[in-house]
């Protein structure tokens, strides 16, 4: 009897003791390179340390962040954001409109997403922040979801004028921060909302995908983000793990220099698209044939995916015919020639995303089948924008995220503007598309936007300034000892505060 009691007491004590002491161990691939929000704001936003004015739900619908509501004036030029009343920073100070306006002004002057918005002025007005625009811009709230716009307390800024510590307003506060790999969080007393289910969070950055999988498997980590496709099947079979997969608005595409003599002919771009074995590549490398990008945007990106559109698919005969039509004839070495020059170029890619070099390797072999000689060069991510800028880029395999601003219009507007951009078109522009995009940016009615969206997609599908290769998914693994996991395809907020220890 007594022994039983003691046993129960010990068990209870140890359980409560553990629940109080054991932090939620989160592992992800992202290093905290620097603590400036422009650099690592996404980490603090995802981990719910800092908040943006506007947030987003899993379906891509904008929701309240630091601002509980917002509205635009009739002319669409003046926007008013109402701040949450009880909002306090982790140093105890109140989140005021003046602080928010100051922060946003600074961000707007930087190189982040907000700099793309035609802002005329940002001012505090009582409990509201007022943003005045120089021309109507319906997508503004979506831009305020971007992590570079997180609002930090004035005490974050050091004497040098730079951010030196992270004092945010979210449910968690930074307990200790050891860049680039470690961060410990604890529940913030200042947070007025629902108390986080687990009081402490321990974030560890682990760059190697295999290691992350092993940390999940060994039970060392409670929550692991970004699993390698090859590990997913194995992890799914593990009874202790809960594997969640979400399609994220990220597309790997071939950024083609349409101004180069090799790719200026749209028939050549179409031929290359018809050469790609998207289905095989995704099956082998991404382990999910459904990720073959039959058009630029995945199904999950509501309104931006058109099921009616004829899919991009493999057709070697058609590809060969198109190339012959464009004047390319096979030479003695099996490589296509035109005007005495071989169809030979460098396919530039980078390893920041581990799947890009393998996909480039697959593409190289596929292009070789129709006599196109691509040399794969794995370099630094900055080489693609650099060579885009000086015009020497031939073809690059890039990974493009369409949720930097939750409304894809933001990215589209930047990518396909005349003159192109870092990750968008090179040597290609289309007036009709530009006009459509500008109109859409000023239109907030979804019904009015839908036909314009379809038309824009059709133009990109037929002109192929960027050749889509694969879509992406995010695999998150949770140990079954935790519950309440919510997966955010837009990767704005991981909802850690809602996670609890399973009983």
């Amino acid at each position, binding site marked *: 009897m007594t022994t039983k009691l003691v046993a129960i007491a010990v068990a209870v004590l140890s359980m409560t003791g553990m629940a109080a002491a054991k932090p939620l161990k989160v592992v992800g691939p992202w290093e905290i390179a620097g603590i400036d929000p422009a650099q690592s704001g996404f980490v603090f936003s995802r981990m719910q340390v800092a908040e943006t004015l506007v947030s987003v739900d899993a379906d891509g619908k904008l929701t309240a962040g630091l601002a509980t509501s917002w509205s635009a004036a009739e002319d669409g030029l003046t926007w008013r954001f109402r701040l949450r009343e009880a909002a306090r920073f982790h140093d105890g100070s109140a989140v005021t409109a003046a602080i928010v306006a100051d922060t946003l002004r600074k961000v707007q002057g930087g190189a982040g997403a907000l700099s793309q918005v035609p802002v005329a002025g940002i001012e505090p007005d009582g409990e509201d922040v007022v943003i005045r625009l120089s021309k109507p811009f319906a997508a503004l709230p979506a831009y305020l979801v971007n992590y570079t716009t997180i609002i930090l307390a004035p005490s974050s800024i050091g004497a040098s004028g730079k951010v030196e510590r992270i004092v945010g307003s979210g449910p968690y506060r930074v307990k200790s921060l050891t860049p680039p790999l470690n961060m410990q969080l604890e529940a913030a007393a200042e947070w007025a909302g629902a108390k986080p289910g687990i009081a402490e969070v321990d974030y560890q950055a682990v760059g190697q995908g*295999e290691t992350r999988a092993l940390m999940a498997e060994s039970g060392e980590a409670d929550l692991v983000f970004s699993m390698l496709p090859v*590990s997913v099947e194995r992890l799914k079979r593990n009874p202790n793990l809960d594997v969640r997969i979400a399609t994220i608005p990220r597309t790997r595409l071939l950024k083609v220099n349409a101004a180069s003599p090799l790719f200026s002919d749209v028939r050549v771009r179409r031929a290359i698209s018809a050469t790609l074995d998207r289905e095989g590549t995704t099956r*082998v*490398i991404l382990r999910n044939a459904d990720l073959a990008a039959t058009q630029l945007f995945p199904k999950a990106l509501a309104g931006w995916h058109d099921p009616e559109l004829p899919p991009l698919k493999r057709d070697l005969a058609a590809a060969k015919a198109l190339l012959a039509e464009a004047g390319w004839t096979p030479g003695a070495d099996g490589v296509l020639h035109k005007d005495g020059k071989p169809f030979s170029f460098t396919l530039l890619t980078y390893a920041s995303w581990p799947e890009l070099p393998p996909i480039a*390797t697959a593409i190289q*072999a*596929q292009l070789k089948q129709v006599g196109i000689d691509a040399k*794969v060069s794995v370099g630094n991510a900055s080489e693609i924008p650099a060579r885009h800028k000086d015009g020497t880029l031939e073809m690059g395999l890039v990974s493009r995220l369409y949720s930097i601003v939750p409304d894809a219009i933001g990215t589209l507007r930047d990518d396909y503007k005349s003159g192109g951009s870092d990750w968008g078109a090179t040597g290609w522009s289309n007036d009709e598309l530009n006009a459509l995009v500008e109109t859409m940016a000023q239109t907030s009615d979804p019904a009015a936007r839908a036909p314009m969206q379809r038309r824009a997609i059709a133009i990109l599908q037929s002109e192929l300034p960027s050749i889509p290769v694969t879509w992406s998914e995010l695999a998150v693994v949770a140990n079954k000892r935790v519950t309440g996991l919510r997966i955010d395809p837009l990767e704005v907020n991981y909802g850690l505060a809602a996670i609890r220890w399973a009983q």
Partner: protein
Amino acid sequence: MSTADATLVPITQRSWLTPSRMAGLALLGLLALFALSGPLLVSVDPSEQDFAASLAPPGSDYLLGADHYGRSMLARLAYGARLSFGMALLTVATAAVPGILLGLLAAWRGGWLERVLDLVSTVLLALPGLLLVLILLAFAPGTFGPLYLGLALTLWIEFYRVTWVTAGGVLKQPHVEATRLLGFGTSYILRSLVLPEIRPILITLSAFAMSTAIIAISTLSAISVGLRPPTPELGAMIVELLPYYAEAPLHVLMPGILIFLLVLGLQLATRSDAR
């Protein structure tokens, strides 16, 4: 132990070709055969992909199986062996020749030359070799030239130091003085007196340096600054196949086994009796 009566003990038959050397040479011969004639015999293109055969096990349509892209492992291993062994040999030769020559020079001439070379080598030693390789690689990413130069730049120091110390020891011995008095020139002394003494240790060093070179290239591939795909290179093959370790462990090990056999062959072939 006393050697005063050594002349009484009958001379044991000195055979250069000990069993271990024979085994080592046979192993090296087989590897050379595989690396040199393999690419000729295996008619398959090592970069030809066949997604249907992704990670095919050995013994299927593909003798040694196929990698994740469905490329023939046999073809890739044969080409990879040729490339990796060739590159490693070239790298080690580039490191060894100047290393040994400078080592001999320092031991022979002594004086300020020795001191300058010593200082240069210690300062170079203190510089992170990785830095040199990364910086050189930045000039021509994905190509063999800078990789080779960078590795040779870090590897020569070991050859230099070993040669310098060993040759210095040999050159101090009276038989060198005696040989010089008998009218022999520098080249004879270096060739016939010094070289045979430093040869065993240099060969051992080279054997390990070759594996170091291959491993270094694979390490660079692991941090994505290696050779450009789809080059079949043994180290890069390990890196490429590593994510599939759970599904196809044998595939990951195959290139490693080739490297192992190379080092083992070199070690056996150069092993002196168990002394």
